[in-house]
C-alpha cells in the first residue's frame, strides 16, 4: 500500500538509515528522500486517511486534503534544495536532525488529530534545536537553550489546551475551532508561539542566526509555516489574527531596519512575512486561505533562497555583520544575482513569486472591506522592499567595499540556489500550477495593468526613499532589545534575587542549626547534671536576688564536675525524661 505510506515515515526511515552509510551514500540518500516524498505526496488523494487507536482514542496519523498537500509539496521541494545546498557537510549529525525535523513537520501538516499533531510538534522543537547546537559555539549553545525552552513553553500551552479541549468536547479532531473557550485560546497561543507572533517572537531572531549555515536555511521553512498551516486549519476567520498579523508585519520591518547581522535581518523579515499569512488566516475567506497558503508556498522558496545566499556569504567569509561585509558582488556575482532574485521575490516585485501570492491575501481583505488591514499591509509591503528587498543585497553585496574577495561558494550550493531562483521566477510569471493545487478554486488575477502599475510605483518610490535616506540607515554595531530581554536579563535578575533571598536564608539556617545549636548542645551534654545544677542555681540567684554565696556554690559545682562526682545515670535520666516529654507531646497531639 505505497499510497498509504505517510511521508513522515519515509523521512524517519531515511534518518535511521543515515548513520550506516558512507558519505557518498548519505549525500545521495538526503536527495532521494525528498524526491520520493514528492512522488508519495503527488499520489495521495484528498480524502485518504490512516487511523489508529491509542489509549482508547481514535487518532488520525494521516489526513489528506488540498490544504495539507500544498504544504506537503513545498516542504519536500524545499527539503530537496536545502539538502543539495548542504552536500558539503562531512558529518551525519546535521543531516540526521534535519531529516527528522522535516519529517515531523510533514507529519504535523498531515496529522488529522490534536494528539498526533502535538507529538510531531514536540519532535520538531527538539530536533531543530540540534541544527543550532551543531554550530558548536558558546553563543549558539546559549541560543539553542533559550530556543528549546521557549518551544517547550509553547508546547506546554498547546498540550494544556488540547487536554482541556478533549475534556470539554470529548473529541481529539483537529478541524476549524468555532467557539472561544480557554481550551481553544490556549491552543491558539501555542500555535502563535511557533508562528513567532510578538511577544513570543524573540526566539526566532535569537536562534536562527546562530544556527549553522545549512541549519539556518532549513529551519526558516518549517517551524513557522507549520504554525501558519495550523492557524489556517484551526483558526480561519478569528479576527484577532488580523491584528496579530498586522503587528507582526510592522514589527518585522522595524527590527530588520535596526539590525546589523544579515541573517538576523532575514530572520526579522520571516516574522514580517508570516504576519501577512496570519492576517490571511484572520480574514478567513476562501480567497484569504488560498492567498495565505500560496504565500506560504512562495515564501518558503524565496526565503530559503535568501538564507542560502546569506549562508554562502557566511560560509565563504565567516562574517555575517553588514558592517563587516560589502562589495561582495565583485567576486560573488552569482550569489549576488540569486540573492537579489530572492530579495525581489520577497518584495513581491512583479514577475517574481511573491507578487502572485501576497496580493491575493490583500485582495481578500479588500473584498471583506477591512480598510485598516489593507492599509497596514500596504505600508508593510513598501517596508519589505526597504529592509529585505534593498537593504539586504545592498549592504552585503554593494555599499562600502570592505576588501573581502571570497569567491563563489561550492557548485552544489549554487545549484541549490539556482533551482530556487528558477522557481521564484517561474511562479511569478506562470503561477497557474500553484493556483491549481490551492485548497479552493482561484478567482484572482495577479497581473492587471492598474494593480501591477500601482505595485511598481509603490516599490520603486520605496527604493527612492531608501536611497535618499541612506545616511539614516547606516549600519551600527549594535543589537536591539526585544522581548527576550525578559528572560535573558530579567531571568538573570530573578536568579540574582533568588540567590540573595534564599541563599541568605539558607546561610542563616545553616549557621543556627548546623553549627551553633549542635555546639551548644555538645557543651551541655559533656556534663548534663552539673550543667543543670549550675544553670538552675544561676536562675534561682537571679530571681531571688540572694547572691552572697554565689561564687562559692559555683566553684563547688565546677569542682564536682571536674572530678566526675555526678552519677553517670543522671545523663540517662535526662534522656529518658526528654523522651517522655516528646512522647507525651505526640500523644496529646
Amino acid at each position: 500500500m505505497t499510497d498509504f505510506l505517510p511521508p513522515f515515515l519515509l523521512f524517519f526511515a531515511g534518518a535511521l538509515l543515515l548513520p550506516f552509510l558512507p558519505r557518498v551514500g548519505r549525500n545521495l540518500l538526503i536527495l532521494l528522500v525528498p524526491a520520493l516524498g514528492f512522488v508519495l505526496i503527488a499520489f495521495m488523494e484528498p480524502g485518504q486517511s490512516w487511523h489508529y487507536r491509542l489509549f482508547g482514542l481514535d487518532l488520525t496519523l494521516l489526513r489528506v486534503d488540498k490544504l495539507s498537500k500544498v504544504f506537503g509539496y513545498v516542504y519536500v521541494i524545499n527539503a530537496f534544495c536545502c539538502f543539495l545546498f548542504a552536500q558539503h557537510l562531512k558529518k551525519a549529525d546535521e543531516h540526521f536532525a534535519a531529516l527528522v525535523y522535516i519529517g515531523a513537520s510533514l507529519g504535523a501538516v498531515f496529522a488529522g488529530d490534536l494528539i498526533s499533531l502535538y507529538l510531531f510538534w514536540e519532535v520538531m522543537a527538539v530536533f531543530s534545536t540540534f541544527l543550532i547546537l551543531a554550530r558548536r559555539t558558546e553563543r549558539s549553545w546559549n541560543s539553542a537553550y533559550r530556543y528549546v525552552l521557549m518551544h517547550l513553553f509553547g508546547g506546554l500551552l498547546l498540550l494544556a489546551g488540547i487536554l482541556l479541549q478533549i475534556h470539554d468536547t470529548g473529541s481529539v479532531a483537529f478541524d476549524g475551532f468555532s467557539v472561544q473557550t480557554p481550551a481553544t485560546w490556549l491552543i491558539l497561543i501555542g500555535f502563535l508561539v511557533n508562528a513567532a507572533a510578538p511577544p513570543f517572537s524573540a526566539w526566532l531572531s535569537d536562534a536562527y542566526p546562530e544556527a549553522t549555515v545549512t541549519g539556518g536555511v532549513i529551519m526558516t521553512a518549517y517551524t513557522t509555516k507549520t504554525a501558519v498551516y495550523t492557524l489556517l486549519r484551526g483558526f480561519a476567520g478569528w479576527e484577532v489574527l488580523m491584528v496579530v498579523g498586522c503587528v507582526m508585519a510592522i514589527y518585522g520591518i522595524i527590527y530588520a531596519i535596526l539590525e546589523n547581522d544579515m541573517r538576523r535581518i532575514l530572520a526579522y523579515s520571516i516574522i514580517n512575512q508570516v504576519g501577512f499569512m496570519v492576517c490571511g488566516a484572520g480574514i478567513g475567506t476562501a480567497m484569504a486561505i488560498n492567498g495565505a497558503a500560496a504565500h506560504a508556498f512562495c515564501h518558503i522558496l524565496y526565503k530559503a533562497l535568501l538564507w542560502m545566499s546569506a549562508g554562502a556569504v557566511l560560509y565563504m567569509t565567516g562574517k555575517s555583520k553588514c558592517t563587516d561585509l560589502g562589495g561582495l558582488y565583485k567576486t560573488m556575482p552569482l550569489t549576488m544575482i540569486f540573492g537579489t532574485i530572492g530579495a525581489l521575490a520577497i518584495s513581491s516585485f512583479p514577475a517574481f513569486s511573491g507578487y502572485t501570492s501576497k496580493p491575493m491575501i490583500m485582495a481578500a481583505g479588500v473584498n471583506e472591506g477591512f480598510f485598516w488591514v489593507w492599509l497596514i499591509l500596504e505600508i508593510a509591503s513598501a517596508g519589505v522592499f526597504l529592509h529585505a528587498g534593498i537593504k539586504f543585497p545592498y549592504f552585503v553585496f554593494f555599499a562600502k567595499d570592505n576588501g573581502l574577495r571570497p569567491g563563489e561558494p561550492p557548485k552544489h550550493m549554487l545549484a541549490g540556489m539556482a533551482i530556487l531562483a528558477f522557481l521564484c521566477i517561474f511562479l511569478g510569471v506562470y503561477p497557474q500550477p500553484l493556483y491549481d493545487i490551492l485548497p479552493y478554486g482561484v478567482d484572482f488575477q495577479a497581473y492587471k495593468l492598474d494593480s501591477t502599475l500601482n505595485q511598481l510605483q509603490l516599490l520603486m518610490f520605496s527604493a527612492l526613499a531608501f536611497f535618499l535616506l541612506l545616511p539614516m540607515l547606516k549600519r551600527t554595531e549594535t543589537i536591539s532589545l526585544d522581548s527576550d530581554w525578559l528572560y535573558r536579563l530579567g531571568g538573570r535578575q530573578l536568579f540574582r534575587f533568588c540567590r540573595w533571598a534564599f541563599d541568605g536564608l539558607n546561610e542563616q539556617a545553616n549557621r543556627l542549626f548546623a553549627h551553633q545549636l549542635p555546639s551548644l548542645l555538645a557543651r551541655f551534654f559533656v556534663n548534663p547534671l552539673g550543667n543543670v545544677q549550675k544553670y538552675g542555681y544561676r536562675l534561682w540567684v537571679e530571681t531571688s536576688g540572694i547572691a552572697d554565696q554565689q561564687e562559692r556554690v559555683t566553684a563547688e559545682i565546677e569542682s564536682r564536675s571536674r572530678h566526675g562526682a555526678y552519677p553517670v545515670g543522671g545523663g540517662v535520666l535526662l534522656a529518658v525524661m526528654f523522651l517522655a516529654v516528646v512522647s507525651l507531646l505526640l500523644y496529646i497531639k
Partner: protein
Amino acid sequence: MKEKKVYDWFDHPQNIRKLRYGFYTVLVLLVLPDFFLHKHTYFSAVESVPGFFALFGFISCVVIILVSKLLGYLLKRREDYYD
C-alpha cells in the same frame, strides 16, 4: 591558485551616475501612465489620483525609517549587552 575574476562596475562614478539617471527615468515613466489611465479603486477615490501609490510608498518608507530611527535610540544596545 586560479585568479578570481573581479568585477568593479559599481566602483566607477560615471556608472553610478548612469544608474541614477536610469532610476529617475523609470520613476517618471511609472507615474506618467496614471494621467491617462482609469484605475479601479478599493476604498476611496483618492486612490485614483495620479501617482497616489508612488506617494504612498514613499511616505510609508520615510515614516518607517523615521520611526525605526527613533525606536533605535530606545532599543539599540552594544553588542556585548547580554554577555
